[in-house]
């Protein structure tokens, strides 16, 4: 291994893990290439692809113009033609300019062509708030994409998942979107030493517990884990934390299995509540585990407002640890 990969896995940041995954993919398979705005010379808007253009050249680490619809669509074409593109869209906010290509082409071509045209494309993008970037740079629109049949939607929340989700995503014959929460990039965590590719369809229990299930993903996982520790220390409530990891398909077995054990569920989602992922998960719990529930399903979501700039308003708009603790106590109370 070279560069970052030669370092102790345990000291790897989320950003470095994602970079190492891309380096490995580029080195292993010459059909793989990375393209997007400023992924090359600039090193990626969030520094994820720093150094890759020097290593693999501008053909395979390809800077694009500001043309989201154009280069995502070109990624679809290249995938159809047999390449394995990784397309980086700076943030989910900007991906809306490419939503037509993602929904009407990437997700649809296989079905519409009667199984002839598969699209083995990986799209990576950041999501989420917390850095005072105001509405047009802060939204969590994962649910928009999880709504679409024909694509797979992933949300790596840990360093290990950032490191190991890309290879199976590239091996998948269909389009995969990977959401990277912007506040995770600098982080390191105890999962860094977990080895090997992950099963893309599965949720994971990050903390076992008996009294209730905190169900979350992405940038909210850390908050849910902190809330679980506080609940244990202060209130003697033993919370299980479930990381959805795959937002489409949802791993019903893991989620429902957890709720059957704990009989209570709190869903934590930075996205909006109305018509969001939390609504989908809550509906599945009531469909499949209604008679196992000892309390109504609780939701802790982003406030129904475009994310504001001012610090106190932004923080108030996002799920916070005390909100999660309060919801958990309502559920067990």
């Amino acid at each position, binding site marked *: 291994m070279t560069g970052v990969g030669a370092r102790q896995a345990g000291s790897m940041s989320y950003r470095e893990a994602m970079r190492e995954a891309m380096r490995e993919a580029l080195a292993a398979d010459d059909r793989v290439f990375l393209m997007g705005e400023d992924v090359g010379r600039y090193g990626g808007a969030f520094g994820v692809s720093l150094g890759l253009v020097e290593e693999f050249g501008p053909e395979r680490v390809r800077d694009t113009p*500001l043309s989201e619809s154009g280069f995502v669509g070109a990624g679809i074409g290249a995938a159809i033609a047999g390449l394995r593109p990784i397309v980086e869209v700076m943030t989910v*906010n900007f991906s809306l300019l490419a939503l037509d290509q993602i929904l009407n082409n990437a997700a649809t071509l296989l079905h519409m062509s009667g199984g002839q045209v598969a699209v083995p494309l990986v799209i990576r993008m950041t999501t989420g708030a917390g850095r005072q970037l105001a509405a047009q740079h802060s939204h969590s629109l994962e649910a928009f994409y999880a709504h679409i049949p024909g694509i797979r939607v992933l949300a790596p929340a840990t360093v290990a998942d950032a490191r190991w989700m890309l290879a199976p995503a590239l091996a998948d014959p269909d389009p995969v979107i990977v959401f990277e929460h912007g506040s995770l990039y600098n982080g390191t965590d105890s999962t860094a030493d977990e080895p090997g590719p992950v099963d893309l369809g599965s949720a994971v229990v990050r903390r076992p517990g008996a009294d209730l299930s905190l169900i979350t993903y992405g940038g909210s996982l850390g908050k849910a884990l902190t809330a679980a520790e506080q609940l244990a220390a202060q209130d003697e409530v033993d919370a299980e934390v479930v990381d959805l990891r795959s937002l489409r398909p949802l791993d019903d077995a893991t989620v429902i299995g957890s709720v059957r054990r704990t009989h209570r569920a709190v869903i934590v989602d930075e996205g909006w509540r109305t018509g969001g992922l939390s609504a989908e998960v809550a509906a599945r719990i009531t469909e499949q585990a209604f008679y196992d529930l000892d309390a109504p399903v609780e939701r802790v979501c982003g406030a129904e407002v475009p994310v*504001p*700039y001012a610090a106190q*308003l932004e923080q108030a708009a996002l799920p916070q640890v005390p909100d999660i603790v309060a919801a958990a106590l309502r559920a067990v109370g």
Partner: protein
Amino acid sequence: MVRIRQFEERCVELYSGGEVRGFVHLCIGEEAVSAGVLGALGPEDAVVTTYREHGHALARGIPAESVFAEMLGRVTGCSRGRGGSMHLFDVSRRFYGGHGIVAGGLPVAAGLALADRMRGQEHVTCCLFGDGALAEGEFHETANLAALWDLPLLLACENNLYAMGTALNREHAQTDLAARAASYGLVAWGVDGMDVLAVERAVARAARAIRDGAGPVFLELRTYRFRAHSMYDPDRYRDKAEVERWKERDPIQVLSTRMRAEDGLDDKAIAEVEKEVSEELDTALDHARQGGTEPVEDLLRFVYSPAEGSS
């Protein structure tokens, strides 16, 4: 221009001190565009711009205190602290943002122009955007609509040669931007964007032509940003010598050199202007810092208009 320059230098300090957060994009080096474009428009003309808009906002007449307050997240800011550096709005001055999605303001500007046209108003809508925006479909669609419907729209492209870290010739197949705009049927020409008088003349001429019914105009204002794209940008993609070369054409220097020769401007007069501006900004910042913050209970305001019911 001196005011804009000093304002932005304060922004650097405020950002370094942690008082201002988020993405902050400076226009240092591009002041002639702000002063020239906004100086040539009338108060009834509408303005739509991007996230790199402190200069545009100040030149439009939004008080420095109001812009500072916005960046500090105060309720006294021009967007009540909800927009921050990238989203300055002042509808009383027909200043319609402050847009963070590249090229997102262009179709909106076409709509403002359409409304003026439909109401028989002789106003011009001026949309400011960067060279990068020409790569988006939104530019193509707006240019086509504007020409097709003969809209009173001034497309003012602030060509600073880079879209973030991507140089003009690595983002555009046709780097003659005015030629491209002309292919849609827009009247289009290039202007020295480091010369405020040239910019002002060009915009005045364009606005006159638009008011006279000549249809939409595209101006390519050739300029350069002396600073990085944003406070996050390590600026690795361009040659330091190139930056230094452009600094020789610093728009404030270009103007003061001319005024020294033609109007007898001297060091003392320059120092006085600088001091005056600095004192004005001291006061503005002081006042901005005293502004309150929006109470958290009001988080859900402005999602829907009050008349339309609550959220």
